[in-house]
């Protein structure tokens, strides 16, 4: 940048800088974090109060669909095991459903595709601000959880994924209200085609009342747990652990 900075500009920049670094500093304090955590809790409770547990996210007509549904996040897992499955068309791949369940499952993709499916044209909202509308087909998570039989201690459902960021595996978690919601599906189809790798083949979670980062791609294992503290760094998801994103992403 060229040009001299006048004394007045220096004053404005200086004062502004002080205020700003003030905000940055406040943002890092334990006190702010706990206030902010309380506000997050309040937001979730308030939303849960006004959103009926069965309320459906808006569904759209084929005419509303995005011409191009962009990909984001990881578009190709690097793990050799995943690449081998991709090579063989997921022929001997199994979805594991375990944890606090009575009957752990190991389901081949063909079996999952043969289960009753739900198709929904919904809007995908990224935390960054963009939206895309697409058509998803998959098995309601409720069917799998009912098949496996949740034990009464189970409080959360964790999705373990094949992709990672710098060695940290992607994972996400939801509570049982969302897990049993009729639009919560593990999608194997998108826009009338098999789910593409960029969008999370073989299975991606669709959680239509929350933001995109909750919708884990490349889902390998569904685990029922009573506590999130033992998984990852304990915040309930990769982005929650890595960058402080909100666990409840309904807004």
């Amino acid at each position, binding site marked *: 940048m060229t040009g001299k900075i006048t004394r007045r500009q220096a004053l404005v920049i200086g004062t502004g800088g002080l205020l700003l670094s003030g905000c940055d500093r406040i*943002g890092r304090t334990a006190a702010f974090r706990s206030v902010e955590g309380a506000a997050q809790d309040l937001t979730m409770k308030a939303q849960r109060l006004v959103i009926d547990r069965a309320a459906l996210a808006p569904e759209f007509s084929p005419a509303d669909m995005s011409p191009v549904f962009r990909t984001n996040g990881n578009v190709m897992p690097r793990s050799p095991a995943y690449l081998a499955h991709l090579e063989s068309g997921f022929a001997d791949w199994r979805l594991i459903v375990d944890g606090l369940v009575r009957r752990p499952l190991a389901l081949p993709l063909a079996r999952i595709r043969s289960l009753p499916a739900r198709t929904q044209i919904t*809007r995908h909202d990224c935390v960054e601000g963009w939206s895309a509308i697409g058509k998803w087909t998959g098995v309601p998570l409720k069917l799998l959880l009912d098949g496996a039989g949740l034990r009464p201690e189970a409080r959360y459902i964790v999705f373990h994924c094949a992709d990672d960021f710098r060695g940290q595996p992607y994972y996400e978690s939801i509570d049982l209200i969302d897990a049993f919601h009729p639009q919560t599906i593990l999608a194997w189809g998108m826009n009338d085609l098999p789910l593409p790798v960029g969008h999370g083949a073989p299975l991606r979670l669709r959680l239509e009342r929350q933001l995109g980062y909750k919708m884990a791609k490349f889902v390998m294992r569904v685990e029922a747990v009573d506590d999130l503290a033992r998984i990852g760094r304990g915040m309930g998801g990769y982005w929650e652990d890595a*960058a402080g994103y909100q666990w409840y992403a309904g807004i």
Partner: protein
Amino acid sequence: MTADAQAEPSAGERPPAPAGGDLVYRHRWPTRLWHWLNALTVFVMLMSGLMIFNAHPRLYWGKYGANRDTPWLQIGGDRERGHLVLGSLDIPTTGLLGHWYDRNGNLQNRAFPGWATIPSHYDLAGARSWHFLFAWLLFVPGVLFWMISFLNRHVQRDLAPKREELAPRHIWQDIKDHARLRFPRGVKARDYNILQKLSYLGVIFLLLPLMVLTGLAMSPGMNAAWPWLLDLTGGRQSARSIHFIVAMLILAFIVVHLVMVVLAGPINEIRSMITGRYRLPREKS
């Protein structure tokens, strides 16, 4: 009788009008408290909102909108320059938007510069934390202020325009007076003029509610609970666009508001918003 006693609002009927130079009670405590709370809240909302915008510096109309769709507004830059693209207009913003230097002297191509955002470095999760914490401070006291201001008749008595004030001639006269920086004096300065009334009413009953509604319309959770939010705004991406436009209107209001405070006598004006007491400017002799 002192000017103070004369102007206390508790008195049932208004005593003889005060004159220039008198100290009158102008702002009651709910107004003052809400004003200063908002002075903080609105700035945090604006600045954390700009950081959230930085995560995807493009705005669209309609239900969807992402990188392969056509935005109506886009801010970006490269090594040489920054620009704001508004429809077919390409406005250079080098040094300000899409091309600026951070505190370490490094070139950044994010839309809004660090001095305008909270946090000052790129941190979407942090900005969301600030935004949704202060959203409660905007919403709850805002609703309380609405209720109190109807109950204590602040809205009906001080803010609602009188019929004669709405006459085009009167409004035009007020615009001319403002443009010439000719402000009311004496007893006339005790009440809000018509431009003040309209802008305060506009912010309190139009812009702020629109901010809240368009904000909620962007929430996938709220879309399930209240799908009418999307009908009202024309879709989530339209809601995001309106949210941004209204935020800029609020910013414009603040700029004009601060300029008017400075021009009208900052010490007297700021004192009246702290203690409630305002010294009426003396009539020109």
